[in-house]
């Protein structure tokens, strides 16, 4: 429950994330080599330079990327759970005029002047959005779009004007649009470190307040938490971390660094403090990936590469997330579909056995196919599937229950008939309406619900259609009876 402390204290884990990031950087190098051939550079040499950290500019770029990934992931988590993702977008575009004005302050790329100018402009933008929504009938999305575009337009005009000025050192200002991590200097990186440190400390100190106001602002306010102050503080830190990320990621895409790592983490976990850690990790991973490819790509813009990195991580989480991932969901669906299929086959075997007066030695594939209205081949496939799970054995076109198989089959039939009886007796549904519902329910009824149903139905033995409901003695009879009797054949007997 201590994300700030945990982030500071889990350097070991962070190193793991680093190693993971570098491993992922390595993976696509083979494909990327062809791009390098075109660029006519020595791939191996670039790689050695990157990992030996010889260049000061490379060191700055890397440290800067880690810092911005950390702060953006951390604060982005809160704007995602507060449903303020578009506010992040507006904020990042609104800072551009501030960047230009900060530059005009003393006609140089002074990080502090630009930082102050950009933060002020960003906050002015968000204040304008809330003023518009309060004083007019306009809704927040419209106000956001309007303010975002206006500020951005003013910013582009100012930046273009500055670049046409005859005087001053204008180098680097154009990098604010699409980002260039290699343009980071020592001053920039120390500013980034300060902002990140402040962000991590504040989130650690005020985690409780941030959590409560994000989940239920009304309740938080009613219990004395100053929700407005928390909101304003978060907006200020958000503006600050957007601004430090500007030079490396660029105005256009910086909001993606706020949203994408946090959205990735949101898919991967159900707890806020873990989301903060994961989002920071994803942010760092994306930042380092972007810096790496920008470096080996000789001046490719860093921002788009970082965002592509972040989106790649997001895509992986989308497909491979353990609980909410597409593959996991598909797999669970498949598993349950296969189970339903097996249980339906077992049920068919039970019905045949029941119709034969529980005397048959086994069920021929032809009977099973007839019952399920399928071909013999399909019946064979189903029987083999049952055999694979230990529910049946197949021997020269005859299917035999194993004890487990017969027990499960009796349970399914019991569930089905109990449910039908329950619906007809307790819910007053006509007997000819209950079958389809029972077909679905029979596979998901748990033992405790079955006990409850049996109790409520007075341990009835006959279902609405006059068929007998298998009781515990029918289900567990195999403990006593073995062998050919009752259609059960001991698995050991078949070779």
């Amino acid at each position, binding site marked *: *429950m*201590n994300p700030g402390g945990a982030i500071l204290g889990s350097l070991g884990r962070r190193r793991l994330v680093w190693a993971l990031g570098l491993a992922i950087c390595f993976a696509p190098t083979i494909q990327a080599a062809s791009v390098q051939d075109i660029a006519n550079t020595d791939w191996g040499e670039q790689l050695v330079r990157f990992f030996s950290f010889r260049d000061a500019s490379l060191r700055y770029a890397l440290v800067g990327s880690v810092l911005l990934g950390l702060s953006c992931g951390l604060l982005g988590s809160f704007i995602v*759970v507060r*449903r303020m993702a578009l506010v992040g977008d507006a904020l990042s575009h609104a800072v551009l005029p501030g960047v230009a004005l900060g530059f005009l302050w003393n006609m140089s790329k002074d990080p502090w002047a630009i930082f102050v100018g950009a933060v002020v402009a960003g906050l002015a933008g968000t204040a304008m959005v809330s003023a518009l929504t309060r004083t007019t009938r306009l809704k927040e999305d419209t106000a956001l779009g309007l303010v975002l575009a206006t500020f951005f337009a003013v910013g582009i005009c100012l930046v273009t004007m500055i670049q046409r000025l005859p005087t001053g050192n204008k180098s680097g200002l154009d990098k604010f649009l699409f980002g260039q991590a290699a343009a980071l200097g020592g001053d920039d990186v120390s500013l980034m470190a300060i902002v990140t440190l402040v962000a991590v400390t504040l989130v650690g*100190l*005020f985690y*409780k*307040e941030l*959590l*409560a106001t*994000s*989940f*239920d602002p*009304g*309740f*938080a*306010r*009613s*219990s*004395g*938490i100053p929700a407005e102050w928390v909101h304003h503080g978060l907006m200020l830190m958000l503006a600050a971390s957007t601004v430090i990320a500007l030079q490396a990621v660029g105005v256009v895409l910086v909001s993606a660094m706020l949203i994408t790592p946090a959205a990735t983490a*949101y898919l991967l*976990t*159900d*707890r*806020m403090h*873990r*989301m903060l850690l994961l989002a920071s990790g994803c942010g760092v991973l994306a930042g380092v990936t972007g810096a790496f490819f920008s470096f080996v790509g000789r001046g490719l813009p860093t921002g788009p590469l970082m965002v592509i990195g972040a989106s790649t991580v997001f895509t992986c989480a989308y497909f491979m997330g353990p609980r909410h991932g597409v593959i996991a969901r598909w797999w669970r669906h498949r598993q349950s579909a296969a189970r339903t299929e097996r249980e339906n086959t077992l049920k068919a075997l039970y019905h045949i056995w029941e119709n034969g007066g529980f005397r048959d030695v086994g069920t021929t594939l032809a009977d099973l196919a007839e019952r399920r209205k399928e071909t013999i081949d399909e019946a064979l496939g189903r029987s083999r599937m049952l055999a694979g799970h230990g529910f049946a054995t197949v021997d020269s076109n005859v299917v035999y229950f194993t004890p487990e198989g017969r027990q499960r089959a009796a349970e399914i039939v019991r569930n089905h008939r109990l449910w039908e009886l329950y619906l007809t007796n307790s819910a007053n549904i006509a007997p000819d309406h209950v079958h389809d519902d029972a077909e679905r329910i029979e596979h998901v009824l748990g033992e405790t619900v079955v006990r409850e149903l049996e109790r409520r139905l007075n341990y009835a033995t006959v279902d609405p259609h006059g068929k007998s409901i298998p009781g515990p003695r029918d289900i567990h009879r195999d403990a006593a009876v073995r062998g050919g009797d009752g259609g059960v054949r001991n698995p050991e007997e078949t070779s």
Partner: protein
Amino acid sequence: MSGTENQAAPLEIHDLTVAYHKKPVLWGVDLEVPAGQLIGIIGPNGAGKSTLIKACMGLLPMQSGWVKVFGQSLKEVPTRVGYVPQRESVDWDFPVNVMDVVLMGRYGRLGLFRRPSKVDRNVARDCLDRVKMLPYANRQISNLSGGQQQRVFLARALAQQADLYFMDEPFAGVDAATEAAIVTVLRELRNQGKTLIVVHHDLPTAKQYFDSLLLLNMNVVAFGPTAEVFTAEQLQRTYGGRLTILSEVASVLGAGNGGVNL
């Protein structure tokens, strides 16, 4: 007016007016609530039931009037007041589990920089047990049914250990078992001398559940013991004639001078 601070009424409202976009929703509400009662607020849709308790909790700006809680302003005694908001007011996909939510009931008492301690966790666990949700403590909140969500909200309010509770439609859309469980807890609280003010929408059960009723339709139609207030005549006055003229006049005035001051 109440006497000394110790005997001050749990809730005293004087001339409270609340407006949304200059249209008054509540108008000149006066109320003094006695201690140790289970009080229901009933009235037609749009009568200002939720607005009244939100205004009491300081969640909405007031056009006029004042609210005193135990003789003081709410800001001075936030820990004496508990709140159960409407279930729909939060995002149930939020990445927290049941225990996290109930612990939020302790935050008001903790103050800045302090994290929930073992004591707080035990309190939260007891509260979950009282609403029979302890087995769900580690469940992600999106996996709960409507009734379970409501019980979690009630447990969070119990964790506040307040003396006066405001509850906004705690019975809305819950199953019969949850409704019974909530009523039991509310009566227990009342028997401990706490005051509960509950927005309710179902008339037959209102008569059965509450000691006193507040019939509300923009202003207080009637307030008193259920047996006295729950009469055909009073209900007709509450639900029958919507106070259309008052509402129209007030909104015209509101648009004219920016406030409502008749």
